[in-house]
């Protein structure tokens, strides 16, 4: 029998350890909380994600499914131990770095441990063996292909050999594939994520959440509850919020309470929080928490929420309409009426969960009249300002110290855990920590908006677009979050990167009793692209035109107006992307024909199809100021410091921004000491969203580099300088004529130290030039768009409806690839998320609140990806660079849907295209014929 608090001894990372613990406690918890083994990550507590993989007597197991007592007398190895003792792990680490196989790094320990177990058994494994060995570890960032490559490389396969392309010692950083600057910590499992940063004495907070989609409630005797539970310090509820019990994103739409007030509007909404000692909180049963629920009828869809007698979720929103956005030009109705060919369709998509492997976590502590919040976030300054209002204190009294972020993709832009622990730490004057469970993370944080889109598009007799209407209804959930942004972005982008003279698009956001829909990679644009790009295929087929050539014929070009009337003179790159795919497209078309002829002969149920889709995306906020500020300085000892406030979610902004800064200054990336992000020490570099960090913060960093170079030139007395060499307390400056002078940083008479500790310091800002849109959505919403086109080859099992992806070719116009390795990483990761959206992902509140019912792609689901980096420079971009982070996802799902139809005739307009839907659509197609 497993009994309580037994002494447990085993060998951990080659050292004997003994610890007193509950025998049935999860090994993952014991390793992290009692033995400080923070390289073991917890993503799901259900064996679904593999982040906590450790070796027990050499076998890979999930530590979250292993009872502590089960390792008695055994040998347990975690990443940090393997790094010290196992040569396979060391070569895997090096290969992961070289290949860019880690982005956020939260899955990296699980990947490296699993891969080590593989190489111990099979030193030179096949690709299939690699997939089989890593199939149990989920990654949401990389798309897995670089992980496969890295393991194959570490396994000695020459074909996968990849050497570091760039060096941090080079003075030319732009265009160089530097390995990520924060990579070493991620490889060693020491990068500190949200649940890795709390002090040992922190109290633990857990949230009491609604089990109902819609209910009224009354809290009972909380004082009695606290009294009945030893070790519980306090219960917090709406009455305890010192400032305003509201938060949100967009002015005018600040509608979400920290704690619900008498009524909950979605399943998982917080009504109270309990704070207490860690051991007590872990075991605390909420079943006896004093709350009385009265369930109410729930409005789960916009259709239900817009009936005549539907209850209104928010007083200011009649008919539950949150807001809508419109863009129109020309006369779309007349254009469609006169069209030679017109196609229409209704398309729908469901909630998509971000499913980053790191659930929300962090801690807060109060010092005097200030409060610090540490944890994972995408938006430090927005968090700071919102928390100040909730606490009723000045923004300067709140400091946000972002931890490493284990994936964000948009959802960590919103406040989630922060208000609870900030209020608790503030009121209790003690450090308080929290880590969301996977279920909480899935229930309570924002999702991609479900969409319902009615679209019509017409062409003239030459195949040119002559009219397009788009009417999209987006389920924004119970609270606004980034809903207004989606409503505004979609009409601008629903045209695709094409020339439309007659266009009208309208998107509305509707409140329902579901989890708030917010920001998710693309802000509604991926949904719109599914409708538009699917109908483009129909138009091309009706016109008997090649589907790629049809898109090229209609592709937007320089000097042509977008649907908002914006004209770019030199940076429209969609044509180059489509042309980049042409040769492969034609080859794939021939290959598919041959495949299908053979399949018919051999009575195989498989049919091959090819699909293509384009995408575009405006970088930065829509018609709103969104500046970034970057500060840099040189200390008296010669240390060059970059205050870099842009939060790296794994995409690599820390590396790219440093490259741009170092390149502009004329030093090597290795010469730069990085600080931040931290609102206490880094100026506001804005949020990490809208594909804006390379573009906006990158520009600020470049300007800071140039300004510092100018300052050094001024100090040297040279008009023009060509070389800067930093050494201890000295800068050697080389003039254009080859002369050298030295700036003595220790010279106190010449150089004073400023308040920040620098003898030389600069601070530069950049804000993209945009203009407000008029009532027809006309204007210049973004300074830069990025462009993309992707093609996919896939096979459909026409008897089972299964889709087997063969390969992708992805052409992306990034203006200038500051770091090609990181560009590829974004493309791979975006495609993986697009695959999930197209084929398997569906968040259903109350039903798929874990990672075994909510499926995301595994290592077996992402086929080889060939990337084509297109560089059509943008005059506003740093060195010509455009954003990329969201573009990478937009064409993927429609390309897959178009290929499924090409292969099998199945028309899928309601996502995801699960096997049952594909098979039903094949039957519909056969009936139609």
């Amino acid at each position, binding site marked *: 029998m*497993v009994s309580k608090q037994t002494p*447990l001894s085993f060998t951990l990372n080659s050292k004997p350890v003994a610890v007193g613990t509950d025998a*049935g406690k999860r090994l993952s918890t014991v390793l992290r909380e009692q033995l400080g083994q923070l390289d073991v990550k917890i993503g799901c507590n259900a*064996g679904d994600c593999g982040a906590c993989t450790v070796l027990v007597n050499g076998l890979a197991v999930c530590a979250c*499914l292993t009872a502590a007592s089960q390792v008695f007398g055994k040998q347990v190895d975690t990443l940090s131990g393997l790094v010290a003792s196992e040569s396979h792990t060391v070569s895997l680490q090096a290969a992961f770095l070289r290949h860019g196989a880690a982005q956020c790094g939260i899955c990296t320990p699980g990947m490296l441990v699993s891969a080590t177990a593989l190489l111990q058994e099979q030193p030179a494994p096949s690709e299939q063996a690699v997939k089989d060995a890593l199939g149990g570890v989920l990654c949401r960032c990389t798309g897995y292909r670089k992980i496969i490559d890295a393991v194959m490389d570490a396994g000695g396969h020459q074909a996968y050999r990849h050497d570091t392309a760039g060096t941090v010692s080079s003075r030319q950083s732009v265009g160089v594939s530097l390995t990520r600057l924060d990579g070493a910590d991620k490889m060693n499992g020491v990068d500190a994520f949200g649940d890795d940063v709390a002090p040992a004495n922190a109290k633990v907070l857990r949230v009491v959440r609604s089990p109902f989609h819609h209910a009224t409630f009354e809290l009972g005797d909380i004082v009695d509850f606290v009294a009945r539970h030893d070790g519980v310090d306090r219960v917090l509820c709406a009455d305890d919020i010192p400032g305003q019990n509201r938060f949100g994103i967009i002015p005018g739409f600040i509608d979400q309470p920290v704690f619900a007030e008498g009524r909950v509007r979605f399943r998982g909404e917080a009504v109270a929080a309990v704070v207490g000692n860690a051991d007590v909180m872990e075991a605390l049963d909420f079943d006896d928490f004093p709350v009385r629920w009265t369930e109410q009828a729930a409005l789960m869809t916009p259709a239900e929420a817009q009936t005549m007698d539907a209850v209104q979720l928010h007083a200011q929103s009649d008919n539950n309409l949150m807001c809508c956005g419109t863009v129109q030009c020309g006369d779309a109705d007349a254009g469609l009426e006169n069209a030679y060919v017109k196609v229409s369709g209704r398309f729908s998509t469901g909630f998509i969960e971000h499913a980053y492997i790191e659930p929300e976590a962090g801690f807060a502590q109060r010092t005097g009249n200030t409060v610090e919040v540490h944890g994972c976030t995408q938006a430090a300054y927005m968090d700071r300002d919102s928390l100040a209002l909730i606490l009723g204190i000045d923004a300067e009294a709140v400091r946000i110290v972002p931890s490493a972020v284990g994936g964000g993709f948009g959802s960590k832009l919103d406040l989630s855990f922060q208000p609870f622990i900030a209020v608790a730490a503030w009121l209790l004057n003690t450090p308080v920590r929290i880590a969301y469970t996977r279920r909480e993370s899935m229930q309570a944080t924002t999702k991609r908006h479900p969409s319902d889109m009615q679209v019509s598009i017409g062409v003239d007799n030459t195949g040119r677009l002559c009219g397009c209407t788009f009417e999209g209804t987006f389920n924004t959930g119970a609270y606004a979050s980034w809903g207004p942004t989606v409503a505004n972005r979609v009409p601008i982008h629903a045209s695709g990167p094409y020339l439309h003279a007659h266009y009208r698009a309208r998107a509305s956001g509707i409140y329902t009793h579901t989890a708030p829909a917010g920001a998710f990679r693309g802000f509604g644009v991926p949904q719109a692209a599914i409708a538009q790009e699917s109908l483009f295929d129909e138009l091309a087929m009706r016109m008997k035109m090649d589907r790629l050539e049809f898109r090229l014929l209609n592709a937007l070009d320089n000097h042509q107006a977008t649907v908002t009337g914006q004209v770019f003179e030199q940076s429209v790159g969609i044509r180059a992307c489509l042309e980049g795919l042409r040769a492969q497209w034609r080859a794939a078309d021939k290959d598919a024909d041959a495949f299908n002829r053979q399949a018919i002969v051999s009575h195989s149920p498989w049919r091959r199809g090819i699909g293509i889709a384009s995408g575009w995306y405006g970088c930065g906020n829509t018609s709103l100021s969104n500046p970034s500020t970057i500060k840099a300085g040189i200390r008296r000892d010669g240390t060059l410091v970059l205050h870099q406030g842009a939060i790296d979610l794994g995409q690599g902004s820390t590396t790219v921004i440093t490259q741009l800064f170092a390149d502009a200054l004329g030093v090597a990336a290795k010469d730069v000491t990085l600080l931040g992000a931290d609102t206490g020490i880094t100026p506001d570099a804005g949020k990490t969203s809208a594909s804006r960090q390379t573009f906006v913060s990158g520009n600020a960093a470049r300007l800071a580099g140039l300004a510092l170079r100018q300052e050094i030139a001024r100090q040297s007395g040279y008009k023009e300088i060509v070389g800067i060499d930093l050494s201890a307390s000295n800068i050697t400056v080389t003039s254009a004529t080859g002369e050298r002078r030295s700036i003595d940083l220790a010279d106190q008479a010449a150089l004073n130290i400023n308040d920040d500790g620098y003898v030389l310091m600069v601070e530069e800002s950049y804000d993209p030039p945009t203009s407000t849109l008029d009532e027809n959505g006309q204007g210049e919403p973004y300074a830069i768009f990025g462009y993309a086109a992707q093609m996919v080859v896939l096979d459909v099992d026409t008897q089972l409806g299964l889709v087997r992806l063969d390969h992708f070719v992805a052409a992306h116009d990034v203006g200038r690839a500051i770091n090609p390795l990181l560009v590829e990483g974004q493309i791979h990761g975006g495609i993986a998320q697009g695959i999930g959206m197209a084929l398997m992902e569906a968040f259903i509140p109350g039903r798929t609140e*874990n990672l075994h019912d909510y499926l995301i792609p595994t*290592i077996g689901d992402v086929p080889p990806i060939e990337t084509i980096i297109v560089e059509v420079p943008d005059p506003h971009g740093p060195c010509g660079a455009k954003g990329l982070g969201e573009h990478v996802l937009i064409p993927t799902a429609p390309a897959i849907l178009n290929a499924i139809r090409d292969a099998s005739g199945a028309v899928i307009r309601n996502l995801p295209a699960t096997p*049952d839907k594909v098979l*039903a659509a094949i039957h519909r197609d056969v009936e139609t014929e």
Partner: protein
Amino acid sequence: MKKRKARTGCDENVNTLLLEDALATLASGEAVVLAGGTDVYPGLQDRPAPAPMLDISRIAELKGIEKTSDGWKIGAGTSWTELIRADLPAVFDGLKCAARQTGSVQIQNAATVAGNLCNASPAADGVPPLLALNASLSIASARGTRLVSLPGFITAVRQTTLKPDELVTAIVVPEHELNALSVFHKLGSRSYLVISVAMLAVTVVPDCDGRIRDVRIAVGACSPVAQRLPELEAALYDLHLVEDDLSAALQPEHLQCLKPIDDVRGSAAYRLEAVQAMISRSLREVAEKFAEVKRGI
């Protein structure tokens, strides 16, 4: 069986719990049985582990796979990985195929085959292949031992005939003729870590000529408990693996015993249709395997 005090906790003997001690513990009160932990812990949904738990992974008597006079005995402590690595006759190929598709390597290393049966999920990967192998379960308690057939063991969704004081000690697979063949197909919406939409397991015992002398076909995830298809099996009896069109024997009424549901993984209609395709493919695969063996490959 003499009564002994169960050894508890993580003392020096923790690695060697005796079966009789475990049974005594179960006889003295209910305990959650812990083996691989891959169903127990997810089922907790972030609540702390229940006390008491009886960790049977430490019982040496439950380890290993051996050939006995009753057939092959797969100890209840046998993990999927141990099964995959065991040297077993070809008739176990289907079960091994299911093992390789159960969860992930992490799950296969920890989870036990017997635990998969005890969990009694409609989508349990182990049930169809073991039904097709005519497997039974060896069950022990302080009161004695009994052998129960797999269909007699799992009665409904997450329900078995196991009594609170009983423990499954082994899965027993009767010995098959050497030329018996088996295949397994799992249908899911992604690779790895996926709960099955439908599963199909087939065991065929042909005579040396290729005529079907015994056939068992089991379908998973299409009814509360995985089902054999006795009418289809009867229709296939005596057909020739290579010369006859086996698929033609399949009639819609053969599937009437299935009761698939609509859920997030697939519709009921889809499941029924998919099963038919899977049956045809599995029978063709068996025929190909037979032909290969015959050709001496």
